[in-house]
């Protein structure tokens, strides 16, 4: 995808928590270009700064060094919408109002047209008949589908997903991955997707970027040229899927062991 102008350009970005010199260096001078309409998955060991990176895209953190540029092409569309790992549906709003929240909050609500859009995504996520319910009346999977409906209904130029399925049980996760793939193939907005699941990354992404253990750097970028539309069950049976997942693990396994050792050292140091 290189050569195109990036939708998102990350230029020498570092993030240090606490003291600039002695603080915890979460991300170390990373560069990344994400093309318009590209679905990029970022994988890496725990604590490698991948969540921090996506939170910077979302405007929730600021880089300590470097710059992130996101092209905001259409002012009628919000720039980003984030789907969080935790439950993030507002308990005080109905399902319908939750799904409409993004459009209303960002001031891009356009009456009937927006309502149609919200209803469409409620239908797509199977929540339309629950639109007058409150989140506390829904199951965990439904609440996460509501977050997805809210983000898609917002019609952002970039969709940000921070391990959106991590809290779900394995079987629900499989279904949601497929539903997300179908939904995305319809709209093809730019997506940044953080995950621990290598199979999830291969299944969903156009490209998988691997981060090192802390301080996080990009150590590998893997193009996933599996054909779309991707049907989860079929894709998983192909030898290419297995090979790509294994290739990712070859790169990542070493980093995970490093991260474990770092963690052990840190805990021991803190204990002294």
């Amino acid at each position, binding site marked *: 995808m290189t050569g195109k102008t990036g939708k998102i350009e990350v230029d020498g970005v570092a993030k240090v928590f606490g003291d600039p010199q002695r603080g915890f260096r979460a991300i170390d001078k990373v560069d990344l270009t994400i093309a318009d309409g590209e679905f990029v998955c970022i994988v890496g060991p725990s604590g490698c700064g991948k969540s921090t990176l996506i939170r910077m895209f*979302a*405007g*929730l953190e600021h880089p300590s060094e470097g710059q992130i540029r996101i092209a905001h092409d259409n002012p009628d569309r*919000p*720039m*980003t*919408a*984030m789907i*969080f790992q*935790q*439950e*993030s549906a*507002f*308990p*005080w709003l109905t399902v319908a109002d939750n799904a409409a*929240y*993004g459009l209303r*909050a*960002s*001031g891009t609500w356009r009456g009937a047209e927006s309502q149609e859009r919200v209803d469409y995504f409620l239908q797509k996520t199977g929540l339309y008949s629950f639109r007058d319910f*409150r*989140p*506390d009346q829904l199951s965990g999977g439904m609440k996460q589908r509501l977050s997805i409906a809210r983000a898609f209904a*917002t019609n952002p130029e970039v969709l*940000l997903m921070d391990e959106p399925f991590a809290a779900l049980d394995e079987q629900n996760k499989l279904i949601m991955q497929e539903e997300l793939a179908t939904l995305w193939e319809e709209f093809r907005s730019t997506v940044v997707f953080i995950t621990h699941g290598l199979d999830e990354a291969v299944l969903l992404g156009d490209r998988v970027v691997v981060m090192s253990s802390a301080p996080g750097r990009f150590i590998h970028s893997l193009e996933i040229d599996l054909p779309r539309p991707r049907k989860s069950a079929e894709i998983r049976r192909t030898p290419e899927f297995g090979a790509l997942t294994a290739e990712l693990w070859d790169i990542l396994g070493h980093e995970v062991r490093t991260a474990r050792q770092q963690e052990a050292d840190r805990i021991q140091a803190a204990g002294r």
Partner: protein
Amino acid sequence: MATIETIDVSRAPRKGTRRVLGMPIGLISPIVLLGLWEIAARTGAVNVTFFPAPSTILATGFAQAQTAQFWGDLGISLQRIAVGLVMGAVPGVLVGLAMGLFRPVREALNPLIAALFPIPKIALLPLLLLIFGIGETSKYVTIAINVFFLMTINTFAGVVSTPKIYFEVARNLKASRLKTYLTVALPGALPGIFTGLRICMGTALILLVAVEFSTADSGVGYRIWWAWTVFWVDTMYVGFLVIAILGLGFSYAVDFLERLVIPWHRKHER
């Protein structure tokens, strides 16, 4: 020798309210207490000059409920509580929200509130009498000051305990300050606001009675004090009864409002 442990419904804990003679046990205990009191009063085991029989108190109560004075007292007392509550709660909620949302406001006000909150508000009454005179205003303000502090502190606690994720959703979607205030901070603070209200209703009653003891010539508290000066003990007890019923009524009213306004905030019941 081997034994068999049977696990079936027979050992399951019983559900629902415990009942004695078909009545909930919470209703039995006051009835038993009142019954014992009645017997003690009638047999002369307690001095009816100080502890008149419940039946006597009830009879006095019914008689007083026919008089305009009784309803006048009740009306003015409710008015003092209501006005004091509104005067204190509205600014209290606003300041609490501002403290929760804006760090400078929090840093500026936190020490001030921590220092002023523990002062028993009734101690300010003489000052308030000087400023506002002996009329209704000084009574409203005494109750309002107390309500203000309780609502500020509890609203602030409500905003602060709202999970950060909801603010992040609003921020990510570029919601304006005002939108965030109205769609996240306020609903997030509502459980805290109701906790504050619950405490306010109790303390407002205490202050009401204290204020009416000292500077009023009407109201339920005044009537209790007046009953002492003329030694009408039955009337005094009717006053206690009215205060108790008010307290219970306020508590139910707040519960009812809470269920109505924040149905998503369910108490963890077994």
